[in-house]
């Protein structure tokens, strides 16, 4: 850990929430992807956060893994689509917009909270650096 541990720890929090935001924006960008029924649908990505060195409380957080949604997606009847199969079906990804928007809020708030902690830690460390100059 760095010489200013609180900043380093919150930094890991910022990174994880940033990656979560990236995953959500990727999911939202692909929410209307159309695939033929012969292929896989776009799989939604879900970031799983994991604590680092859980025991001593000065580890921070990391991305433990990415869980991908189902490849089956949902079948939509769209006979006019160029990718439609013989029965007129295409595959859409199985992504719930409301769920993604909820996650977006959580990720955004988490990101902002970590930045606020960095800001407060910075003030304290700055005073500590000034110690003895008075």
């Amino acid at each position, binding site marked *: 850990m760095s010489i200013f541990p609180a900043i380093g720890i919150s930094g890991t929090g910022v990174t994880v929430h940033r990656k979560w935001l990236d995953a959500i924006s990727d999911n939202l960008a692909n929410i209307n992807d159309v695939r033929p029924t012969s292929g896989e649908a776009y799989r939604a990505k879900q970031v799983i*956060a994991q604590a680092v060195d859980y025991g001593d409380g*000065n580890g*921070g*957080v990391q991305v433990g893994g990415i869980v991908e949604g189902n490849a089956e997606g949902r079948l939509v009847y769209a006979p006019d689509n160029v990718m439609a199969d013989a029965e007129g079906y295409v595959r859409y990804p199985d992504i719930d917009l409301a769920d993604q928007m909820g996650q977006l809020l959580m990720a955004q708030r988490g990101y902002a909270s970590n930045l606020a902690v960095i800001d407060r830690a910075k003030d*304290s460390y700055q*005073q500590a650096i000034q110690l*003895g100059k008075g």
Partner: protein
Amino acid sequence: MFDTVTSTVVKTALDGLAMRQRVTADNVANVNTPQFLAGRVQFEDALRQAVESGQGFDGETRAQISRVALSDEASQPSLSRSLEPTRTDGNNVNLDHEVISNIDTQLRYQLMIRAMDDQYGGIRAVISGGA
């Protein structure tokens, strides 16, 4: 002469507060981590007991007794996990609590820095003959 009870107490308090600041940062970083239980730092009670153990003695002796009590393993800041009810994902970090604790710890830390600084300021004034 620089090892007064005050300087020892201030130093110990700074250590404890720095640890609490670190643990709060860890809690906020893990606000969305499944199965994460918020960490809590205790050091005030041990510090008070250590200072009280030197009561009834004067000056150097008192400082020495307090210092010995503080160097004891039991007086070190300790980390425990919060037992508050968890959310459905097994996490019990309460962001409001963490933000308040973070601000509170920051102010206390700055207060302790100030106290330490003033102590040194007094010594400096004596060394420079008040000039």
